[in-house]
C-alpha cells in the first residue's frame, strides 16, 4: 500500500486530496501510466508530464525514480511559494 497525495488543481480535478492504493509499479512513470488507466480525470491530469511535479516520501523526485521504498507519493503543480 502506498499513500498518494494531490495538491492544488490536481487535487481539485481528481476530486480528492489523496488515496491509498495497491500498485505493482516500480517507478513514478509506471505509476502514472497505471493511474491514467483508472479514469478520465486521471488521464487528463497526468497527460502532460511538464505540468506537474512529484515527491516521494516528501522529497522531490524525478519521474524515473524508483517507488519501491515509497510510502507516500505526492503529485502537484510547479510550486509558487515566496
Amino acid at each position, binding site marked *: 500500500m502506498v499513500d498518494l*497525495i494531490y*495538491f*492544488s*488543481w490536481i487535487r481539485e480535478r481528481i476530486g480528492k486530496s489523496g488515496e491509498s492504493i495497491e500498485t505493482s509499479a516500480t517507478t513514478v512513470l509506471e505509476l502514472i501510466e497505471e493511474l491514467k488507466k483508472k479514469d478520465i480525470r486521471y488521464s487528463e491530469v497526468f497527460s502532460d508530464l511538464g505540468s506537474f511535479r512529484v*515527491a516521494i516520501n*516528501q*522529497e*522531490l523526485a524525478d519521474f524515473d525514480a524508483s517507488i519501491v521504498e515509497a510510502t507516500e507519493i*505526492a503529485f*502537484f*503543480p*510547479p*510550486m*509558487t*511559494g*515566496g
Partner: protein
Amino acid sequence: MRISVQNEFFDFSTEIKNFSATLENIGALVTFTGIVRGQKSQTLDYMVIEHYPGMTEKQIHLIVEEAFKRWKISDALVIHRYGKLDPGEPIMMVATAAEHRIEAFEAAEYLMDYLKSKAPFWKKEVLNGEENWVESASEDETALSRWQ
C-alpha cells in the same frame, strides 16, 4: 536558524527586531518581506496558500542549510504563511545576518529564489469572486540557474 510555517499573521518589524536581538558581531542584516498585492490587472479579493505539511518544513530546512554551506552567514530566518491572506498582509519573510553585505544579500536572494520554486506552496488568487491558481513563472525556475 528559525523556520516557521504558519497560518497566523506576523508583524515583520517585530520579527526583524527579535531576529536581530540574538545576533552578535554582525555587520550586515538583510530582510525580504513578501506582501499580498491588492491591485494587479484586477482587484484581488484574497489569496489562499496551500502547502504540503511535513514536506514544507523539511524542504525549507534543506534550502536554509544549503545557504549556510554556500555563504558565511551568522543566522537566517524564514517565515512562510499558508491559508487565507488578505491584500496587504505579509505572505512570508526571510532575514539573513552576516559580517559582510555581499554574503547577506546573496544568501537572502538565494533563499527567495529557492522558496519560490522548491518549497511546496501553491497560491490561489480570488479575483472578483473567481478562483485562479497562480501559475509558476518560467523566470522563477530560470532564476535558480544563477546559483548552479
